[in-house]
């Protein structure tokens, strides 16, 4: 066994996968550098849902108390409903031991938590990775701004439109699932009929609607999943048309209408087209090519279909 000198790991992508990998690697004593294409790690996205299998790993890197502080614990009142509001079943919010480590989080809070743990000189924004090569023991990533980074291992955590993915697995363009998620956040005072401690989800033909609290219960995250006829480019931050969302749930539970009829949907709406990669290794975010020093932990996964996708990235 090993380690005369610490491995240096270059991580391309400063999203949840890349930043968690950086925390985990540093907690194990490795050197890391994170390169993010955006000019800053900003307030992007809406709610994400943490379950005990991911909170267990966040605790291990020292983020247990941050999850408690910034998350909103989702408890026993959580329910699935038919579209008219008839209860179907409770939502499972604990592991087998009864550990209720189930939290709604604002994605921006999660990104902040993960990045604050890293020394300032670890994260390099404004770097878009465009090429990978290796030379003997050295792995190299080139960035669009002309910078070249070297390390022992490269992690491509650069999202569903990854530019490094083809170095690891054969090309397989993402396929649109046919469903679009409209996401928004609203102050809890504006929707008094919605709980700050529970996940509620309504299920109907071709659509579902979901709410859960984030940011210590100050904000309610809501998501409407609706069918779409034409493919949308996936983005966390594409603007959504509130009227399209309003028209999508006629006659559903009055609590859904209560938020959709708010004059100004706080924080706006973002839409996300959900994608999946077909064929062998469907959506497989963790493949390596033999003998290579580059691998992939990505496949940006922001919709309900793929929340477990990013939970996997915490694993």
């Amino acid at each position, binding site marked *: 066994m090993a380690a005369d000198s610490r491995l240096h790991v270059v991580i391309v992508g400063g999203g949840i996968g890349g930043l968690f990998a950086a925390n985990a690697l540093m907690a194990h004593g490795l050197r890391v550098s994170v390169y993010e294409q955006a000019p800053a790690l900003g307030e992007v996205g809406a709610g994400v849902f943490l379950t005990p299998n991911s909170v267990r790993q966040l605790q291990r890197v020292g983020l247990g108390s941050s999850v408690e502080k910034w998350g909103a614990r989702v408890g026993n009142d959580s329910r699935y409903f038919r579209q008219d509001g008839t209860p179907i079943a409770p939502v499972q919010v604990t592991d087998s031991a009864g550990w209720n480590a189930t939290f709604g989080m604002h994605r921006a809070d999660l990104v902040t938590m993960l990045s604050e743990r890293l020394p300032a000189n670890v994260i390099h924004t404004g770097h878009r990775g465009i090429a990978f090569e290796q030379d003997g023991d050295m792995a190299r990533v080139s960035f669009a701004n002309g910078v070249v980074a070297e390390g022992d291992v490269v992690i491509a955590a650069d999202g569903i439109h990854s530019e490094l993915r083809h170095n690891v697995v054969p090309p397989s363009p993402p396929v649109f699932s046919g469903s679009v998620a409209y996401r928004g956040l609203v102050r809890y005072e504006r929707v008094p009929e919605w709980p700050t401690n529970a996940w509620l989800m309504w299920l109907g033909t*071709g659509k579902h609607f979901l709410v859960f609290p984030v940011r210590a219960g100050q904000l309610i995250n809501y998501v409407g*999943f609706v069918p779409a006829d034409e493919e949308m480019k996936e983005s966390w931050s594409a603007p959504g048309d509130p009227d399209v969302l309003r028209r999508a749930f006629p006659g559903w539970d009055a609590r859904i209408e209560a938020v959709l009829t708010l004059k100004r949907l706080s924080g706006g709406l973002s839409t996300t087209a959900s994608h999946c990669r077909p064929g062998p290794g469907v959506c*497989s975010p963790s493949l390596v090519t033999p003998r290579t020093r580059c691998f992939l932990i990505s496949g940006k996964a922001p919709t309900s279909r793929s929340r477990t996708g990013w*939970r996997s990235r915490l694993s």
Partner: protein
Amino acid sequence: MALATILTLADRRTAPAALLVYEHLRRERVPQVQRGARENGLRYDSSYADLGLRDAEIKAHANFRKSRYDYDVVPEAQAAAQSCITGLGKRGHEET
């Protein structure tokens, strides 16, 4: 976390082998979990002639979720790393 657990036992020379250990550990489970999430989303979108069947599946899903929430990748990563990488490392040292 699995990756960090495995790479911490590696050095510059054994890093590619360590990445393979990680791949073997994760390549079945990750797509399986993602497929399950996709199937779950389709269940939510309720293409059922009988919604009672959907509701029964939703109720039955609790035990499956518990098993997902119980999962801890770290012991598996430790076992995989120790059996593979330390073996490789020893062989490497014997050769050199």
